[in-house]
């Protein structure tokens, strides 16, 4: 076998194992290990493994991940979501579709503390879901809003996917966080517009709720201040260079932990936060380990470099190639969880993207593409019929049929795709705040 063929065989092997229910990380480790050994022999491969596991686990840069996960867990167990939702409801609830808009607002605020879309959707489901249903909102609109709103968890920094993308492509975490801000604002605006249109088309599905007096609104919005402060310190701190991204995550975890304790989290809540952090961090690290071995082995085969040269030589506009990659994420979102998708595709996509002539500097290209991947992956997770997050959210709202969730989420998907196209055509939306071009 030529080394190119070994590279292709590695991908084929991963896909076969995935279809046969082998966990993603194990499939990547097995295919990566076998590919590595096929090129260099078994002992060099085993020698690599001597330090690989420990150096991943003890990496200071990567330790930002469990810290952000812990921060999100504290935010979840500490009941911070209630306060955030209440204050958004105070300002928006009496409008047409207002409770759904408040859900989006609450998700956005919670997303500033939590880097995961599933956790954001799950947490807000418990708070906003019953509230919307009680007020006569349809199952379609409520579950659709939660699915759409949940993606804000990962779009608004801190975002686990962005952190991993940044580390993988050796870009600044701070720059990527900042680049995500305008797209995130556009996402919130787009979601609000979708809800408004939905409420106009189907007024009976989104009746206005009781108006909250101004005095109460202001009182409630005070509760958001600590969460906003944490966001500013963490994201501002990273970008302003006050401390390293990992230190910022540590500050965030401690600060949200303190907020959670003030809000009533005790030993039991802390234990649950630890166990939740354990599950999420372990699955992320094992996939990272798999991606490392797989990526190194794939690079040894030189398959990605050759492929990118071949694609670069094709007479296809660069943007069309970008579009194909993004479309692939939408499809993969039906079967794969977002992080696995990203780590499986980046070893091939990054050389290809860097080989395209897009009229941007290399750094700018990487940051812009990172934001695109982030959005595409999230649309994949919520696009009907098989987006994985849809099933989780639908399962939490027991009385809502899956078809209703599909109907409710479709508008949010269109808004996401519209935003994706905008950012493809106007990279400045992502790059402007970072000052990189």
């Amino acid at each position, binding site marked *: 076998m030529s080394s190119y063929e070994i590279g292709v065989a590695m991908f084929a092997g991963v896909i076969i194992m995935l*279809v046969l229910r082998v966990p993603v990380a194990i499939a990547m480790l097995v295919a990566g290990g076998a590919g590595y050994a096929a090129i260099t022999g078994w002992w060099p491969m085993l020698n690599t493994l001597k330090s690989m596991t420990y150096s991943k686990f003890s990496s200071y840069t990567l330790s930002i991940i469990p810290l952000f996960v812990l921060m999100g867990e504290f935010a979840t167990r500490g009941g911070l979501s209630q306060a955030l939702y209440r204050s958004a409801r105070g300002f928006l609830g009496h409008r047409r579709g207002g409770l759904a808009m408040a859900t989006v607002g609450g998700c956005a605020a919670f997303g500033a503390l939590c880097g995961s879309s599933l956790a954001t959707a799950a947490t807000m489901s418990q708070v906003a879901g019953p509230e919307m249903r009680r007020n006569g909102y349809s199952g379609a609109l409520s579950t659709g809003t939660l699915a759409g709103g949940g993606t804000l968890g990962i779009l608004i920094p801190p975002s686990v996917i962005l952190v991993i993308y940044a580390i993988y492509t050796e870009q600044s975490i701070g720059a990527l966080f900042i680049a995500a801000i305008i797209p995130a604002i556009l996402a919130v605006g787009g979601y609000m517009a979708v809800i408004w249109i939905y409420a106009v088309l189907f007024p009976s599905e989104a009746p206005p709720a009781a108006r909250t007096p101004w005095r109460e609104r202001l009182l409630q919005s005070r509760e958001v201040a600590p969460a906003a402060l944490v966001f500013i310190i963490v994201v501002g701190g990273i970008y302003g260079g006050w401390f390293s991204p990992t230190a910022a995550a540590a500050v965030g975890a401690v600060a949200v932990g303190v907020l959670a304790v003030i809000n009533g989290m005790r030993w039991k809540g802390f234990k649950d936060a630890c166990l939740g952090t354990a599950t999420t961090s372990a699955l992320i690290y094992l996939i990272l380990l798999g991606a490392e071995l797989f990526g190194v082995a794939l690079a040894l085969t030189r398959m990605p470099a050759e492929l990118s040269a071949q694609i670069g030589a094709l007479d296809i506009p660069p943007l069309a190639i970008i579009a194909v990659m993004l479309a692939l994420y939408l499809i993969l979102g039906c079967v794969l969880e977002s992080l696995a998708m990203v780590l499986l595709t980046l070893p091939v996509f990054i050389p290809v993207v860097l080989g395209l002539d897009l009229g941007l500097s290399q750094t700018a290209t990487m940051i812009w593409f990172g934001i695109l991947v982030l959005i595409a992956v999230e649309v994949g997770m919520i696009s009907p019929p098989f987006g994985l997050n849809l099933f989780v959210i639908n399962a939490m709202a027991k009385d809502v049929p899956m078809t209703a969730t599909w109907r409710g989420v479709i508008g949010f998907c269109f808004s996401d795709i519209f935003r994706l196209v905008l950012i493809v055509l106007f990279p400045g939306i992502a790059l402007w705040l970072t000052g990189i071009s």
Partner: protein
Amino acid sequence: MSDRFVSARAGLTAGARVLAIAGGLVLSAGALFSVAAILADQLGSPILGDTEMVEFAAAAAVASFLPWCQLNDGHVRIVIFTQALPEPVLRGLDAIGKVLFAVVVSVLAWRLAVGGIDAFERTRMTMFLRLPLWWGYAIAAVPMAFWVVVSWFLAVEAIVRGAPDNTRPTEGFEEVGP
């Protein structure tokens, strides 16, 4: 026979739970230490090598998290393509997958141990605090060894009595993740 599996699983789960909570405590301690280092820096008496303490904490924590995640079937996998297959085939596939998992975990743990011995023999040190690097390996090796036990238990359990509960998830999907 199957009772022994039930009690072994309960025992391992309890152990993994304690380990995961301990890992969470270590991670939280690392976070607190990091914050303390930032404050000390602001006050003009910087702590040297705080990043190395965080690294030790992270390595210990992550290694302690892994058995818990596997016992809870928390690792991402795709089940949609095989949903239509009959139950015995699924059990067979899952048993093979778990053996593969156990083999991978064993190799990882073995190589980590060898790497630790290497670090010991070459007296490799951390950069700032001059702490022996093998300490970190040793702390991580303990949960890794437990993880090996857990992964082989799950493999044997799947072979002997079929994986419990998870051959046909009710939602149709395994979903976990960030």
